[in-house]
């Protein structure tokens, strides 16, 4: 399984995956900043990461999930710094032979990321 994970500043995008992996299913998830946080209207969120550990943990989670839900490739981009409302804080793309393992991988990856990957968000100070 190809695992390609990065943290970056600025808007997120994923280039078209090449070469063809023989995937019958490609599932993409984009987690966006909503216009409210803890009941208060916001214009952006600031994301902070302990980057070496965040990459290490995402890689570890991906490898563990790959054993449970065999997929062909996973690509993850998580943004750090200020992320305006409606922009993506995370992009995940899973390629697999069939959709079932791709959906399962994605759902569990996001659950575990929200438990164990050292990234924090905070509303910017006025």
């Amino acid at each position, binding site marked *: 399984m190809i695992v390609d994970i990065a943290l970056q500043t600025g808007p997120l995008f994923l280039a078209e995956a090449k070469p063809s992996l023989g995937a019958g299913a490609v599932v993409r998830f984009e*987690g966006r900043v909503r216009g409210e946080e803890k009941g208060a209207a916001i214009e952006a969120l600031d*994301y*902070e*990461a*302990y980057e*070496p*550990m*965040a990459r*290490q*943990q995402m890689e570890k989670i991906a490898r563990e999930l790959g054993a449970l839900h065999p997929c062909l490739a996973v690509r993850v981009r*998580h943004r750090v710094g200020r992320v305006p409302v409606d922009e993506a*804080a*995370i992009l995940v793309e899973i390629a697999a032979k069939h959709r079932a393992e791709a959906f399962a991988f994605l759902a569990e990856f*996001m659950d575990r*990321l*929200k*438990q*164990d*990957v*050292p*990234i*924090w*968000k*905070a509303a910017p100070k006025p």
Partner: protein
Amino acid sequence: MTAALRLLVFGPVRAQVGADRLEVACPDSASQEELWSRLLELHPGLESFRSTVRLARDGEFLPPDALLHPGEEIALIPPVSGG
């Protein structure tokens, strides 16, 4: 003998202590309880974080019984909120 543990702090813990790194003197093979006792002497405002902050070393969360050694870099990981 005591020497310093280097602590990395993030998110709300960093906001509380006003720095992203701390040094705390600890004996060799210190327990996590010992670290917290010394840390709270220096930064009593961290008491409310004690029950939710996990410690990590070399990019991995530490089990509660892992011992700490002078010169190590230990990260204090408050509840995460990425994604």
